[in-house]
């Protein structure tokens, strides 16, 4: 039972009942996993001396770097460790990491600051304070050595965790000094290194979490096993706005392994059984009645009329406006117009939603994959009916996040279930069908784009009317500004007006511009979906720029560059991608371009495709360039950029969530497909950090994936695809 689970602050060991195995689960990743401390020892030992919040150093020189942000595949765990380790001047081979808990963060006055991991902020918003943390720890370690030798600090140097006194040649290891250093007051005014002094930052080091991920040793939330643990399967009201009316627990209570059938809340029922497969089998057999609510008759097809209405309606908020639009259109030699559409999409993380909880009258603990540990803690506390100080959340590595695990719905659910079995560990695991039907979906929008060209084919004015769903209206309406969702305009916003969105601004300069949004919200909960609103805004802007270039009779590369004069960094990535791809080559491949700025990074792609006579698309290669300012780990930037074409093009090619009578129609990967190797182009990345700023990496390239391919399809066929996903479109006219 619960008391057999030995918990230290971050490490815990658990026994599997049936097989009698004891498996150590360390929420940590080490350069040398064989050297990881034995789980029993880790659970019982005193913590290593804490030099400061970011750095623990053991007597054997193992450096444990504390990581507040969540690792979901994007490499942030390794990148943040690099930042601290470089400033610390420790031996990278001896670095290991661990997650502090959100509860510890609160208890220590948020010493680790923000735990939330989204918006490609994991590294770029932490760089200053985590590097300072490493630098301060370094200064304290050197001071401790100088004190022991009774020499001036200035006579001491450090390399790879060994402090040397120059004059005497004496040395001390960090492992020997950690305890003394931890007793010193942290110095103030410690400077971080100049980029020219970096030894670990900027190097293509291997991820710390790879070894366990190739042997099956890595434990995810879905894999947790604890003595006495029971398993829960959940069913939520299938229709939007539906509620749980009744269920017949007696009909399944004698099925194998079933412990209990419980109402989770107003919208869900769960079966608790010894094993999850038993719980799921019984849940499938459980008679359940649902009551309809608002949204029960919602259908995607019918909602198209509202989006259509929004394309010309008067009720729009202006996100970016400059120049004399009306005069430009009145005097245009040519005007063109096009309308685009992007559907709802689901995150579909490979690891379905899950969490494990133990609830007692005075304590609630949750183990879960989450992008937002502190929000998960808040959700746990609220669901538990306990003060936040009596709760904690132990984070696990995520089997995919993409924005979905910034939400804490599954955390609330597991606590509500565990509360009905006090003292017993309960693991809740969603089916894939639940995951598809109860997402926080990428919003559906349409856009009507209009352009004015003069006699010489110069763009004199651009209008983009976006119609559709607002994420902020659905998730955090308090963040709306006079009813406007500024984030709807991601990547299209004016520069110099609001520093909170300066990393999401338009990097073209047009003579006249108007971008506005008519909000049309369906009864579908929206979410932040990797790349977020940049994804469709890049389609609207960059596919239409391609259309304008063709209407103007100009080369799409030159046409774009003509309006990037104020933004040479965007021009640089575009030119780099085009050049490396062989833009203008006549080699049987058709090429399409896209450049976009979002999450503080400059990205561009050139897609090379063919479309056969039957309309079958083959994406042969993508050349992608990115300037994130600094590249903490270039080989992981490469991985994120290449990966963005999997996530982005899976959506472009296949993904659409539709609703009929309030219910999601695509319930699994058979109808909500994702790219396979056969669909995957070669990706050549150009990582070109120009320095001086810190941009995001995990998301910005998603935006350029779809427009580059759509523009290449046009180059191949002469046909514009303005409606997604591509699978539903005929690429050649019959």
């Amino acid at each position: 039972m619960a008391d057999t689970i030995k918990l230290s602050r971050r490490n815990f060991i658990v026994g599997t009942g049936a097989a009698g195995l004891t498996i150590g689960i360390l929420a940590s990743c080490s350069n040398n996993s064989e050297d990881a401390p034995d789980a029993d020892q880790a659970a019982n030992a005193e913590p290593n001396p804490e030099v400061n919040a970011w750095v623990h150093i053991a007597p054997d020189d193992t450096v444990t770097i504390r990581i507040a942000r969540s690792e979901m595949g994007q490499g942030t765990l390794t990148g943040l460790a690099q930042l601290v380790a470089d400033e610390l001047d420790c031996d990278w081979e001896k670095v290991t990491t661990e997650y502090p808990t959100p509860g510890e963060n609160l208890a220590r006055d948020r010493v680790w600051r923000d735990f939330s991991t989204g918006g490609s902020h994991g590294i770029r918003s932490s760089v200053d304070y985590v590097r300072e943390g490493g630098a301060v720890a370094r200064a304290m370690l050197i001071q401790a050595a100088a004190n022991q030798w009774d020499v001036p600090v200035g006579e001491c140097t450090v390399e790879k965790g060994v402090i040397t006194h120059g004059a005497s040649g004496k040395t001390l290891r960090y492992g020997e000094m950690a305890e003394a250093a931890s007793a010193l007051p942290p110095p103030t005014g410690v400077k971080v290194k100049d980029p020219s002094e970096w030894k670990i930052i900027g190097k293509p080091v291997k991820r710390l979490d790879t070894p366990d991920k190739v042997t099956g040793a890595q434990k995810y939330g879905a894999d947790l096993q604890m003595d006495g643990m029971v398993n829960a399967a959940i069913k939520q009201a299938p229709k939007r706005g539906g509620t749980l009316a009744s269920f017949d627990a007696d009909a399944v209570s004698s099925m194998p392994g079933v412990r209990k059938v419980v109402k989770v809340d107003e919208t869900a029922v769960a079966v608790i059984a010894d094993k999850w497969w038993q719980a799921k089998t019984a849940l499938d057999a459980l008679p359940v009645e649902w009551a309809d609510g608002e949204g029960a008759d919602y259908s995607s097809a019918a909602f198209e009329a509202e989006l259509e209405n929004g394309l010309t309606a008067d009720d729009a908020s202006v996100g970016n406006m400059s120049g004399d639009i009306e005069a430009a259109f009145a005097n245009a030699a040519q005007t063109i117009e096009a309308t685009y559409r992007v559907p709802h999409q689901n995150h579909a993380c490979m690891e379905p939603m899950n969490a494990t909880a133990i609830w007692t009258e005075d304590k609630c603990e949750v183990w879960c994959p989450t992008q937002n540990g502190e929000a998960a803690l808040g959700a746990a506390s609220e669901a538990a009916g306990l003060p936040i100080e009596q709760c904690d959340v132990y984070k696990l590595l995520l089997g995919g996040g993409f924005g979905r695990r910034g939400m804490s719905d599954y955390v609330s659910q597991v606590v509500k279930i565990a509360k009905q079995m006090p003292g017993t560990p309960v693991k809740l695991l969603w089916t894939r069908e639940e995951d598809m039907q109860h997402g926080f979906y990428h919003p559906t929008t349409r856009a009507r784009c209009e352009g004015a060209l003069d006699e010489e084919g110069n763009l004199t004015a651009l209008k983009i009317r976006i119609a559709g769903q607002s994420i902020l209206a659905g998730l955090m309406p308090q963040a709306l500004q006079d009813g406007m969702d500024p984030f709807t305009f991601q990547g299209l916003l004016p520069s110099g007006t609001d520093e909170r969105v300066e990393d999401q601004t338009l990097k073209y300069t047009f003579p006249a511009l108007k971008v506005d949004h008519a909000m049309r919200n369906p009864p579908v909960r929206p979410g932040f979906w990797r790349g977020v609103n940049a994804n469709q805004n890049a389609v609207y802007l960059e596919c239409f720029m391609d259309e304008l270039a063709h209407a103007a009779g100009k080369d799409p590369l030159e046409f774009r560059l003509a309006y990037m004069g104020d933004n040479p960094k965007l021009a640089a990535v575009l030119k780099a991608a085009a050049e490396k791809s062989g833009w203008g080559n006549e080699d049987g491949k058709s090429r399409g371009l896209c450049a976009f700025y979002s999450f503080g990074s400059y990205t561009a792609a050139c897609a090379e495709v063919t479309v056969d006579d039957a309309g079958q698309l083959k994406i042969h290669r993508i050349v992608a360039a990115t300037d994130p300012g600094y590249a903490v780990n270039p080989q992981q930037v490469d991985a994120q950029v290449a990966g963005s074409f999997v996530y982005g093009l899976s959506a472009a090619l296949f993904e659409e969530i539709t609703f009929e009578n309030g219910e999601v129609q695509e319930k699994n990967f058979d109808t909500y497909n994702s790219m396979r190797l056969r669909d995957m182009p070669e990706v050549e990345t150009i990582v070109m950090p120009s320095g001086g700023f810190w941009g995001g990496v995990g998301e910005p390239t998603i935006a350029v994936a779809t427009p580059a391919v759509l523009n290449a399809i046009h180059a191949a066929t002469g046909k514009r695809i303005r409606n997604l996903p591509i699978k539903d479109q005929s690429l050649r006219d019959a």
Partner: protein
Amino acid sequence: MATLKVNGKTVSVDADENTPLLWVLREDLGLTGAKYGCGIAQCGTCTIHIDGQPVRSCTYPVGALSGEEEITTIEGLSEDGSHPVQQAWVELDIPQCGYCQPGMIMAVAGMLNNTPDPTDEDIDAQVTNICRCGTLARVRKGIHLAKTKKA
């Protein structure tokens, strides 16, 4: 009560014959390397080997096994992570979130059992697992690297 040979050991499990092999491995044997991703044999994250052949265990009823088959999971692919596919995966630092990778690695290892020198066309046809993070470009490179390595 069924008897199975898993990773070279004979084990007995008490599970309904309709239980998918995936859940017997995960819940009765504590072998959680094979993952649940879809339950309908679409995504491949549950891939294990039966007599060296890649099988999507989420739809394979345990009752269909005779007990004579050699079942291999990611935990039994090698003793120390030294299978050529695992070596290649480490060398190219392939996993991102890693959740799909045990299935991906088992699918690739299974393909190499049948087709030791696969072409890109062989790979396209035989490895159809889903990875949402986006490791697919490195996976292809990893397969070509793995086929050059020795266990």
